């Protein structure tokens, strides 16, 4: 089977997730080539063909241009699968290519099942097995779902170039707001999710974190609602943390959150929903109402 991987660079650097794509190809036992908009000194180490477009010339973020370049590579390779990371780059570009090819796209693949692809749905409470009907299919892979390949070997580089006009102008990157709290160094983090119910309850979580000698964090919905600052956000678009103890209060466990805290040594989840996906990752799931449990736990700590 032939498979075309679409690697990813950001600010001139190859992203490590590109090796997850190679790992996926190895798992399938497929013959892999890669398309990358990047630079030759940042080529991934693997044995196969690397179709390399220069990011300086065609733009690091230029999906309409990258689509044209990719279509050219697809014509040359005629792969059965074109595989992206399910990332801000991948979920933007993949449907453009799929549309042009009239190929099925399966998003956020976490597993392979007899030629069909398994994806999460309903906040990871369910899994859906999707089978493409088209001869060629486009996939995006969930971050972390497939073991990255070890960088080894050297690709045969084939430069690609095309008149790649952008339909939207990329002005530039903007760094995240100044960091107030560096959660990555905290040994204990108590995080608040939407399940805390209202803004005032953040103080209770913060107080619990203090009483335990740690910092408090928050999930995305809590930050979006303005209950906590962005510097408290744990997850793929916030901070990545690795504390010795992570206590998730009222956090259902969306993959974006799990990506930010899965390296925690010990995870406690407090949730009234016994089926919350966070339970899959938690060492201990406490099924309880936060309003009752947190004061009781504070009592125990201080007692």
């Amino acid at each position, binding site marked *: 089977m032939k498979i075309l991987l679409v690697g990813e660079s950001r600010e001139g650097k190859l992203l490590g997730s590109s090796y997850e794509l190679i790992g996926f190809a190895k798992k399938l036992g497929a013959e892999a080539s890669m398309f990358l908009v990047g630079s030759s000194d940042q080529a991934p180490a693997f044995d196969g063909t690397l179709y390399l477009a220069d990011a300086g010339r065609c733009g690091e973020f230029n999906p309409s241009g990258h689509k044209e370049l990719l279509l050219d590579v697809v014509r040359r390779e005629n792969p059965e699968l074109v595989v992206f990371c399910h990332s801000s780059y991948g979920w933007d570009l993949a*449907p453009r290519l799929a549309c042009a090819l009239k190929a099925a796209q*399966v998003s956020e693949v976490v597993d392979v099942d007899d030629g069909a692809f398994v994806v999460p749905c309903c906040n990871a409470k369910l899994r859906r097995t999707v089978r493409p009907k*088209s001869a060629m299919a486009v996939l995006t892979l969930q971050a972390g779902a497939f073991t990255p390949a070890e960088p080894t070997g050297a690709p045969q580089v084939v430069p690609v170039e095309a008149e790649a006009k952008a339909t939207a102008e990329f002005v*530039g990157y903007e760094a995240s707001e100044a960091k107030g709290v560096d959660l990555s160094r905290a040994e204990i983090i108590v995080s608040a999710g939407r399940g805390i119910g209202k803004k005032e309850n953040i103080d209770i979580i913060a107080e619990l974190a203090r009483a335990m000698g740690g910092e408090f964090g928050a999930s995305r919905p809590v930050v979006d609602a303005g209950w906590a600052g962005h510097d408290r956000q744990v997850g793929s678009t916030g901070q990545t943390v690795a504390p010795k103890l992570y206590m998730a209060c009222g956090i259902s466990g969306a993959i974006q959150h799990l990506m930010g805290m899965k390296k925690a040594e010990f995870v406690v989840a407090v949730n009234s929903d016994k089926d919350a996906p966070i339970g899959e990752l938690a060492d201990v799931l406490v099924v309880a109402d936060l309003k009752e449990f947190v004061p009781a736990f504070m009592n125990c700590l201080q007692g």
Partner: protein
Amino acid sequence: MKILVCIKQVPDMESKFKVDSAGTWYDESNLAFRINEYDEYAVEQAVQVREQVGDADVTVLSVGPERVKEAMKKALAMGCDRGVHIADDAIASRDPFEIASIITDFAADKNYDLIFTGMQSQDRGSAQVGVLVAEMLGRPALTTIVGFTLDNGVITAKRELEGGMKGVLKAPLPALVTCQLGLNTPRYPTLPNIMKAKKKELLSLSVAELAKSEALAATEKVAFPEKRGGGLILEGEPADLAGRLLGILREKTNVL
């Protein structure tokens, strides 16, 4: 200015899901449905643009069974001017390509200057339909937007990237944007606006009137994920739970 905002109605994600009898989607009975969260941001942004430019008309569109009108009524109460319901009882079996084809066929001759969608749905999470509609209409698509301004017919949008970074994009109208959580603060419909919304036009079309494509993919199976197991589940009285948890933490971690 003509604005289209596409919304989906989804179950509350806190629900207890059951697999349907065909084993290919969730069982809809006993589920509470609401507007897809991402689409609430799309509706809010569309209404804000209308408030900014003054002379604009916002159409809210939804494809699905009769129940999706409830979500549309909320969008109308939030400030959309009119609704178009594309009645389709088979929506759950359609793939993103089919759904995008249906929306595109409706939108193709309407000359919308701006189309808003959510960046994905909470139930399927494919993150495809918005981009596909833009591609089919031949418009620029700006995706995963957490910042949006419109000035002299040019959009400046901030895309959310990993690790807290953003990418800044500019594109002229007409264009399509897909909205990420946190883009704005969706308003709550006020009672007077809920009353006003009842008088707004809500046109129903049958999906049969619109051109469809063949599905490119099919759902073979929906199932619960295998339990990883190993994790301890504690249930009971809060005071008792608190004591048990503290004991476990003192034994298993060395930080307390």
